[in-house]
């Protein structure tokens, strides 16, 4: 075996010996990330209740018809999933707006229902904090407008019908019939969720949000993997590189040997985590349609498809560690690069809200290309552009890492 072959096999052996410490650092990193994500999710999104818009109801809500209407909106209407109506005093409502507890409140004037019955207009007022007419407030205003419109028009006709019946001497059971009419109105009109379907087009590449984030997590994990592997790359000095160079193993060859062994150990870890994921998928109810029911072979087929991404990210790690020999600096740079690239490429939040120019640029970043490739692997879309881009990146990173190694070994430009 040539010295290059021996160097490659020794690097592999060395990396395998470092595996336990790398695994420990990886698990710690994953736990820290998981805790961070959990805290962010529980603080900002919270439970389903926490996601609802809270709207106060202030004023005269003593009328039984209005009470029935509000109860219907609270308990029957499909808007109950997005809006929570809270009855409160005006002062409390203003204070709640100030503290952000509610988005706004609907101020229902006295004799609101009497006015309807008498054909007069006493409009309800939707109050929001000054300067708070944001997207949420506009939607809330629209919904409350729709609700009040429905209430006013529908109940005007119900009570007109009641008056008409009374005028024609049909007084027997009139109250009960009016109540039945109100209930029919609630059942047929307010419960309008059944008259439309919501069809969600996938977040990107027709994937569900769950599958989108599975791809994002895989990419971020591979990128952050470089942090765990600092012990592989950190060198005290360049003596071995110098000795190898003196024996004809050029810096570029050294980098390629180290890259191959690093890639091998990374793939080993990917397979290890894939097995763990398979166990989870097979034993727990997974809500993500794209991976539900996947078995070991499906997961391993996906792992094989991941190889180009792993090759590119490993090359990226090589260049970072070559550029920054100091362990702390390199780990920090790995973290910043991983998070920064991941953020720009939409790994944390779909990047629609970025300007078009940034979205276009992000699509060509290593992370953007890798992310798109992973998504397309799941949705079985055409991956040629991504494959070519990743190949080019890989060659470029390895070449630059080799140039840096040469510079560090020889001190020559």
């Amino acid at each position, binding site marked *: 075996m040539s*010295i290059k072959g*021996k*160097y490659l096999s*020794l*690097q592999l*052996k*060395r990396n395998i*010996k*470092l595996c336990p410490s790398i695994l420990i650092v990886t698990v710690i990193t994953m736990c820290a990330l998981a805790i961070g994500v959990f805290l962010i999710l529980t603080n900002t999104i919270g439970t389903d209740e926490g996601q609802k818009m809270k709207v106060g109801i202030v004023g005269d809500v003593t009328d039984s018809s209005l009470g029935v209407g509000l109860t219907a909106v609270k308990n029957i209407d499909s808007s109950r999933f997005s809006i929570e109506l809270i009855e409160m005093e005006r002062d409390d409502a203003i204070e709640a707006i100030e503290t952000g507890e509610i988005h706004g409140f609907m101020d229902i004037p006295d004799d609101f229902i009497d006015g309807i019955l008498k054909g007069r207009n006493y409009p309800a007022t939707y109050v929001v904090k000054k300067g708070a007419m944001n997207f949420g407030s506009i939607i809330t205003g629209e919904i409350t407008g729709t609700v009040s419109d429905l209430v006013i028009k529908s109940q005007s006709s119900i009570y007109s019908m009641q008056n008409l019946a009374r005028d024609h001497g049909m007084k027997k059971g009139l109250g009960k019939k009016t109540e039945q009419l109100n209930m029919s109105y609630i059942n047929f009109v307010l419960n309008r969720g059944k008259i439309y379907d919501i069809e969600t087009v996938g977040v990107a590449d027709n994937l569900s949000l769950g599958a989108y984030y599975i791809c994002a997590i895989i990419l971020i994990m591979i990128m952050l993997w470089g942090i765990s592997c600092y012990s592989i790359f950190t060198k*005290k*000095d360049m*003596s*071995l590189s*110098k*000795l*190898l*160079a*003196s*024996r*004809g193993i050029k810096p570029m060859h050294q980098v390629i040997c180290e890259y191959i062994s690093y890639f091998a150990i990374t793939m080993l870890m990917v397979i290890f985590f894939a097995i763990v994921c398979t166990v989870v998928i097979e034993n727990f109810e997974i809500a993500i349609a794209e991976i539900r029911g996947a078995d070991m072979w499906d997961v391993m087929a996906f792992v094989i498809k991941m190889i180009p991404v792993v090759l590119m990210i490993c090359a990226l790690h090589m260049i970072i560690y070559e550029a920054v020999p100091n362990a702390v600096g390199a780990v920090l740079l790995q973290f910043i690069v991983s998070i920064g690239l991941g953020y720009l490429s939409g790994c944390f939040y779909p990047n629609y809200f970025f300007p078009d120019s940034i979205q276009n640029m992000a699509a060509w970043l290593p992370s953007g290309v890798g992310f798109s490739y992973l998504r397309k692997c799941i949705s079985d879309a055409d991956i040629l552009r991504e494959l070519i881009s990743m190949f080019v990146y890989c060659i470029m990173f390895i070449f630059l890492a080799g140039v840096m190694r040469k510079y560090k*070994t*020889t*001190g*020559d430009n």
Partner: protein
Amino acid sequence: MEVKDISKSYGKKEVLQNISFSAGKGECIGLLGGNGSGKSTFLSILAGVQRAGGGEFIHNGVNLLKNSAQRSAVVGYVPQSTPLLEELTAKDNLRLWYDPEDMQHQLKNGVLAMLGIDEFLKVPVRKMSGGMKKRLSIGCAVAHRPEILLLDEPSAALDLLCKERISNYLKEYKSFGGTVILATHDLQELPLCDRMYILKNGVLNPYEYDGDVHRLAGSL
């Protein structure tokens, strides 16, 4: 071997200016000089790690600076720091440079036995003392039985016993016709040297050591 007019510059700073000398088989050349005088740069040029600005390094009529395959076969190089894989054992590190049969032979009767490497064969490098690491580094550098051995401060920060061991090995190496070029600060290594040169301000001058340490210190 003959070194002819080797020069090296970093930008406008000329580190080596037309360095020339020759050495025969079994001869040891001592390179003395202060810190940053260019000794390590000179040795790394001869080892092929760095490129020379100009000059020749001739062995048996071949310019080794232009023939990397020949240079790799002829020259052994021990850098100042230890060129070892820290996580692996001495045996693993030796595997990089030796064929398995040759390694066994050298451990029984050869150079590796002489350097005492068989005593710590299964010890990971990170648990070794400085002396062990240096002996192992020399063992790795001479695996291909080089005719010229370049040593960059081999005894720096080593204990007396270890220095003695390395010194004995170098004597043995010389006795078999090997040529040694030794960059050193260590007075104990000077008796090994058949000729000495002082490298100062990029210029190499011959030096005759007469045991006067103060004169030597003043010359550096």
